[in-house]
């Protein structure tokens, strides 16, 4: 654990301490308080954005040491960035939290089963697409072999902690990852108007391969050649959130190389958390002389799928999707990337959609990466609060992040809701598909005449 001493700042003694400019910008006004899910839940200042920033600053000033009492509030943060939207001084709380977590993990390494899980999943599985795919296959086997229903029936699953049990119940039917099912380049329908890359993502591709497939269909339908670079890796957001900055940086470098080599105009992302992380690579690699400039070039190309379609213009879908639809703002889209209107526009323009604007749509659902695994109790309370805002009478709840989807599937089940949880791009895809079917039907009919 040796680090260049030049990085030392108060009681931060490792590389990448929280940036003084960033915590100095906080004037302690408190306008962030009501935006913070953990503050609303606890009422405790240390579990609020300005409280956390204050503690982060206090450690830098040498007034506090890196202790369990510091670790708790810093790791209880959802990193949802709602406070950044609320903050009038533009304090980048998320970045401060991530840097502080890096320091904490150096000072207080994980031990016991937490350390095991961490190194097994975050270091052993997520960075390696092949191992992820094996995991996916195992899950598929689990679901299809009858083992899932067997275990559910026998009650053996009850041996799992409650939150894992709840999560197990809502696991989507796993489909094949596009990294396996699709070629590296999928050509546009008709003549190509551009060439883009897709970040397949780790969880997304394994758990929600179907959404990636839908994204590819929507992009090709709109005239783009889609590259799914084989060299891409997990975006590293989970690692950075967990304080494992080294692994995060390693993944970042790999992705930068893979995507820059793909020579595309845009890197399209359909997972809010990943998109946000990619856009923040320049900051992550700020002191990497070799990669910083590349990271800037790369980050400029990153766009959320909704942002990409709305900015470039897209074919308005004509197939009807008769449904009452509400939208949940994934934190890392709304607060992290400022993307709010684009997904709403995509959804509202689908014929047949009855739009219901949800109250507190941009309040965190509690998923927050793997927060619902690491802090299940708090995540559960935040989910309950979120579910209060979800209208009863909707058919579909759309969003742009796989983590949120899993969490809200759990929420819907727990609260007895019937609404289906979908990705924004899936709805668009369905509409296109229906449009195509209708067109096919019509031409059949025409032929028949």
């Amino acid at each position, binding site marked *: 654990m040796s680090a260049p001493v030049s990085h030392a700042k108060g009681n931060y003694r490792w590389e990448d301490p929280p940036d003084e400019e960033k915590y100095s910008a906080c004037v*302690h006004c408190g306008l962030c*308080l*009501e935006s913070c899910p953990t503050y609303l839940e606890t009422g*405790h200042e240390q579990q609020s954005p300005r*409280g956390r920033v204050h503690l982060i600053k206090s450690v830098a000033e040498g007034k*506090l040491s890196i202790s369990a009492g510091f670790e708790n509030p810093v790791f209880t943060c959802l990193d949802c960035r709602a406070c950044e939207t609320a903050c009038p001084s*533009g304090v980048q709380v998320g970045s401060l939290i991530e840097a502080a977590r890096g320091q904490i993990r150096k000072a207080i390494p994980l031990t016991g089963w937490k350390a095991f899980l961490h190194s097994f999943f975050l270091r052993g599985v997520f960075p390696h697409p092949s191992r992820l795919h094996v995991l996916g296959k195992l899950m598929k086997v689990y679901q299809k072999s009858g083992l899932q229903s067997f275990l559910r029936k026998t009650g053996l699953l009850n041996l799992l902690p409650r939150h894992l049990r709840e999560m197990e119940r809502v696991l989507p039917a796993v489909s094949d990852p596009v990294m396996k099912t699709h070629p590296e380049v999928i050509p546009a329908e008709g003549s190509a108007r551009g060439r883009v890359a897709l970040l397949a993502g780790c969880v997304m591709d394994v758990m929600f391969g179907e959404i990636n497939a839908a994204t590819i269909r929507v992009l090709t339908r709109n005239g783009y050649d889609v590259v799914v670079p084989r060299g891409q890796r997990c975006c590293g957001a989970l690692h950075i959130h967990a304080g494992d900055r080294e692994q995060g940086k390693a993944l970042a470098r790999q992705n930068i190389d893979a995507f820059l080599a793909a020579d595309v105009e845009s890197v399209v992302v359909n997972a809010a958390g990943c998109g946000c992380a990619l856009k923040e690579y320049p900051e992550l690699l700020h002191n990497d002389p070799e990669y910083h400039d590349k990271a800037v070039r790369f980050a400029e190309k990153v766009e959320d799928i909704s942002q990409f379609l709305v900015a470039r213009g897209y074919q308005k879908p004509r197939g009807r999707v008769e449904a009452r639809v509400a939208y949940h703002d994934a934190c890392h889209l709304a607060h992290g990337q400022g993307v709010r209107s684009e997904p709403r526009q995509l959804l509202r323009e689908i014929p047949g959609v009855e739009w219901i604007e949800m109250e507190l749509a941009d309040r965190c659902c509690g998923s927050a990466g793997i927060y619902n695994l690491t802090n299940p109790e708090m995540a559960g309370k935040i989910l309950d609060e979120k579910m209060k805002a979800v209208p009863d009478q909707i058919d579909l709840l759309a969003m742009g992040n796989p983590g949120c989807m899993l969490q809200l599937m759990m929420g819907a089940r727990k609260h007895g809701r019937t609404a289906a949880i979908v990705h924004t791009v899936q709805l668009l895809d369905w509409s296109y598909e229906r449009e195509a079917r209708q067109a096919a039907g019509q031409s059949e009919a025409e032929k028949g005449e």
Partner: protein
Amino acid sequence: MPAIDPIVHELARIVGADSVLYQREDLAAYECDGYTVHKHPPRAVVFPSCTDEVAAVVKYLHDQNIPFIPRGAGTGLSGGAVPLGGEVIISLVKMKRLLHVDYENRLAVVEPGFVNLKLTNSVAGKGYYYAPDPSSQYACTIGGNVGENAGGAHCLKYGVTTNHVLGLEVVLANGEIAEIGGVPDAPGYDLMGLLTGSEGTLGIVTRITVRILKNPEGKKTVLAYFDSVEEASQAVSDIVAAGIMPAALEMMDKTAIEGVEAGTYPVGHPKGVEAVLLIEVDGIAAGIDDQIAKIVSVCQGRKVSEVKVAATEEERARWWANRKTAFPAMGSISPDYLVQDGVIPRSRLPEVLEKIRQISERSGLRIANVFHAGDGNLHPLILFDARIPGETELAVRVGSEVLKVCADAGGSITGEHGVGIEKKEEMRYVFTDDELEAQLQIRDVFNPRNLLNPDKMFPKPGRCAEMRAAPVEIR
């Protein structure tokens, strides 16, 4: 691990273990409020969830002679909720329910931790709102508003918190619970009026009945840019002289404009203007256009460089967000700022601003001015960098000088932020020893042991002043 303070167990017995904070790191988050010049952690933080718990906590602390401080969201700007050493903070944020709304009688009953803006949001569906709108209304609590007698941008026409409080339930210094007010002109001395704005030194409010108002039928907002502060100030006086009672009349000077444009809610104020006025008129729609026409013509008479009326509600909201976040937005152009809260007769504005400019020049610290021009409440924001040794002290001195200028112009040292820690000594700019003594006499009636938020609001006894009961010894 240091031994746990024995009072923690006692407090936990009253409110439950989850509702007492005592760890060093947790307490560190409570070492200041919106005023960050002074910092000191509390002895513990306790979170009662109902009036009886507040009363029990207060009684325990009273019996033990332990000083305590009520705290809401901690957005105060004068250090009213900052411990000076050894106080227990009683946080009211868990008492955050809206208990009752009575539309026919136009009142709402809330717990002290209920957030200001939530009240308006809760009654907006029926066309009502809660008038006091401090800039921190997104987060500040109504209990805190009562403690500070909070104002806001719209108090020229609608008054401040004290004009909207109809009744209070209060826990007194010894833990007794009293109901005060409730109906207009309740017989007896106006204790409600005294408690409002007493900065937590006379009691802890645990339930508040406030007036709610019907939304005005019409509302129009005007932005007017001026090339000189004098012309803008004259325009303010002319508007008032024209018989118009604007709902809000706000001014920002050049440096303040720079700040808000660098903040989260820029609206594209033109570069180079010396002052902007934000003027809002509300009331019966049929009468508003005439008032707007008068305002526009008054501004034109004062060489306005541009004047425009908000075309949409969205535009209006954007202008207000820009103005309301003016203080924290200074964080974008300066690492630290100190906001002052002087009040002056509005006709004296040009000369006061000139004196402030001179102070800024002499001290080398930039000062941005945000001004509730309608009611003469001036917020000079003194920009500084606490990392530069001595600059915090300089900023504090500059703030005090600015307040002296306001006091000398026939004004006051605080219009809405309260005295707190920050302006204790400046109380002498506006009050004589006799007058301070008269106020302390009142405090002694409510808070004879000086346990409630001790050492706030009042200067240290002067040489001539009678020595008052020394605050309780603090371990």
